[in-house]
């Protein structure tokens, strides 16, 4: 059978072998955690604790502030020692961070309304998800309760579970499916119940046969189907995933719901299960600590807000002079860390430590119009033409050429034999174009 996929894309070295057979381990509790008020897309949470205050694991320390925002919780039991300002590498903004010192073992502050989902109304479930502060754990960190509240007049037909995990190196979703398959299926059923969706698909790349097998067993008898996808980057990009499975194109500038689809990541689904069934707010999640610069790569459950340095201490790093960069996430879209002392946030599904021999020495050439960027763009843009427009600051023209449609997957930059920074230009171009547009409206 031909594997489902989309047009374009690239095939970077997978590097999954570093961690894919390592069982998920629960890491010991950290001594200190740093909880960003921007642990999600949207407005920063409003802090509701003060320095000196004792907090339990799962206790709410910040409240969602606005429609697109999310609660934040203490991820250990201890004492709030200070509130500081730190830059969040994921959102690029400087926000308050609640620093909590651990005083002992976990004392849980669970969500009281949890329990059997079948006895709950959709509104009640959405409310638990909201209380639990769950956001998209694939990396986008979009508040899940907003996604689960289907607006009036729209209808979600399909639920798609994004289990493609197309980023090289990262293996946590793969391990979650192998080790927690029945919990994930229960999570899917909770989302279906809350959104009224009758049919769910789980999209998994073909390079995860064990996960495919386990999930197939777990879904038998349920209206949930496993869809095996071709191993290709960016197979897990939302629009490409939806296209591969339903053959529907999310309209330019639109949302998956415009084609009747909602998409949740594997880890998000698991978090929803944990919140609804066990009342656990989002305080921990799975992560892959990997890369050639890590001595013992593996998959772990860790407390959100743990410092990167503390996490990496558990796996060990190779000699300092060999390390080139450390990334939040994988090598294709990952954000390089300026400093190892930074905390983690909800969207961290991996820390990838790349060594100097892996990161290519860049040699720049002029564009020779080889058209590789056009071939690989999953959105059918003409990256080389678009770059010219952005560089000329012709933002109107650039938008006509689809600047805002760029999903920033980086396939163009990956494939460019001239080493041209295409996607970087588009990212900054989008920011500027958005700012200019905002000003025009005012």
């Amino acid at each position, binding site marked *: 059978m031909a594997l489902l996929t989309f047009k374009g894309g*690239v095939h*970077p070295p997978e590097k999954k072998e570093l961690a894919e057979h390592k069982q998920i381990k629960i890491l010991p509790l950290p001594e200190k955690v740093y909880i960003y008020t921007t642990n999600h897309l949207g407005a920063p949470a409003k802090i509701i604790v003060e320095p000196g205050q004792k907090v339990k694991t799962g206790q709410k320390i910040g409240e969602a502030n606005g429609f697109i925002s999310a609660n934040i919780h203490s991820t250990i039991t201890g004492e709030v020692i200070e509130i500081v300002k730190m830059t969040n590498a994921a959102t690029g903004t400087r926000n308050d961070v609640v620093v909590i010192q651990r005083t002992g073992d976990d004392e849980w502050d669970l969500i009281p309304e949890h329990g059997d989902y079948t006895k709950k109304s959709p509104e009640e479930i959405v409310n638990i998800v909201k209380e639990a502060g769950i956001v998209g754990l694939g990396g986008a960190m979009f508040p899940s309760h907003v996604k689960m509240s289907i607006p009036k007049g729209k209808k979600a037909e399909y639920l798609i579970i994004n289990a493609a995990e197309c980023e*090289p190196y990262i293996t946590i979703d793969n391990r979650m499916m192998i080790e927690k398959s029945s919990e994930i299926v229960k999570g899917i059923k909770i989302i279906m119940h809350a959104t009224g969706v009758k049919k769910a698909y789980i999209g998994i790349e073909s390079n995860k046969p064990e996960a495919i097998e386990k999930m197939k067993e777990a879904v038998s008898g349920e209206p949930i189907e496993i869809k095996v996808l071709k191993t290709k980057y960016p197979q897990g990009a939302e*629009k490409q995933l939806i*296209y591969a499975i339903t053959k529907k*194109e999310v*309209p*330019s*500038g*639109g949302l998956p719901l415009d084609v009747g689809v909602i998409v949740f990541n594997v880890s998000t689904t698991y978090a929803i299960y944990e919140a609804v069934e066990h009342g656990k707010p989002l305080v921990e999640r799975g992560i892959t600590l990997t890369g050639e610069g890590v001595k013992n790569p593996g998959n772990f459950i860790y407390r959100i807000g743990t410092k990167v340095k503390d996490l990496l201490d558990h796996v060990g790093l190779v000699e*300092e002079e060999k*390390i*080139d*960069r*450390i990334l939040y996430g994988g*090598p*294709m*879209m*990952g*954000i*390089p*860390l*300026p400093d*190892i002392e930074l905390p983690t946030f909800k969207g961290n599904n991996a820390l*990838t430590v*790349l060594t100097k021999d*892996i*990161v*290519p020495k*860049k*040699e720049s*050439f*002029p*564009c*020779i*119009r*080889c*058209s590789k960027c*056009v071939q690989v763009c*999953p*959105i*059918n*843009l*003409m990256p*080389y*033409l678009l770059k010219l427009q952005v560089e000329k600051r012709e933002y109107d023209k650039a938008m006509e*050429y*689809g600047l805002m*449609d760029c999903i920033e997957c*980086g396939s163009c*930059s*990956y*494939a*460019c*034999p*001239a*080493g041209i*920074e295409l*996607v*970087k230009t588009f990212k900054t171009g989008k920011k500027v174009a958005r700012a200019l547009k905002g000003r025009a409206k005012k």
Partner: protein
Amino acid sequence: MKLNIAAAPHLRTKDNVRSIMLDVLIALIPSFLVSAWVFGFRAVWIMLYTMILAEGMEIFIMKVLRKQKNFKPDFSASVTGLLLAMNLSLAVNWWQIFIGVLVAIGLGKHVYGGLGKNIFNPALVGRVFMLISFPIAMTTWYRPFYFKYDTITTATPLAILKEHGVEALYNNPDYAINLKSLFIGTVPGSIGEVSAIALIIGFIYLVIRKRIKIWIPITYISTVFVISGIFYMIDPSKYASPLFHILSGGLMLGALFMATDMVTSPMTVKGHIIFGVGLGFITMIIRLFGGYPEGVSFSILIMNSLVPLIDIYAKPRIFGTVRGGKK
């Protein structure tokens, strides 16, 4: 710990412009060998001389005239040089070649801003300049395996066709013209254009290495096949067969290696098809009705000039939109 901060993606393809150019040079090795076999030492000398001259001139222009101290050769000039040599007659001499290379690298490439900026295929700019400047040397042909130059000359298959018609074509006393000789390359012609099979082997190498815009040669050759086929069906006694047209002259070299020059061809598959069909039409118009026996060089230069327009016209439909607007 000192950490590097750089833009994603943090992995990059191992390919670079230099490795692409090297692959093109590798793909031209079979043609190089066949030319050496058919035309002898003089062909080898011209090919090496042109290639080294082109690369040297590029280094001089970059380092001295454009003051790019860190310039490292990317072999694009070698490709230009070798392709120019393959488009030359054996009768040209060293200073004629020097002028041709100067025009190709200087006027064809660097006046536009160097690699990637030129509109026209630089090798063809050089070749056409030489054709106009040195018409006799550029259209003097020698028989295959006839290694005593400057004495007896002959005509290319296409020239025989233009001058004497189909009858004369297959009854040529100087050497055999049949599909087999055209395919292998034992006919007179430009140094590197004669052997279809050698060029095809190189092309297959580039296809395997994913280094070539394959739709350009496919549509170009198909268009030539269809147009010559129509005329052949109308009057086979007057017009040559489509296979003859495909295998003779510079069509194979032009379609496989000159029209597919990345810098001077369109960027999308739709663009490649438009480009290839246009090339086929212009080539056949020149061959059938024009004053020159051969039209490959001119058709490529004409279509090169249309590339910016084709690129804008042949934009792919952006994902999630309908053609001509948002969904």
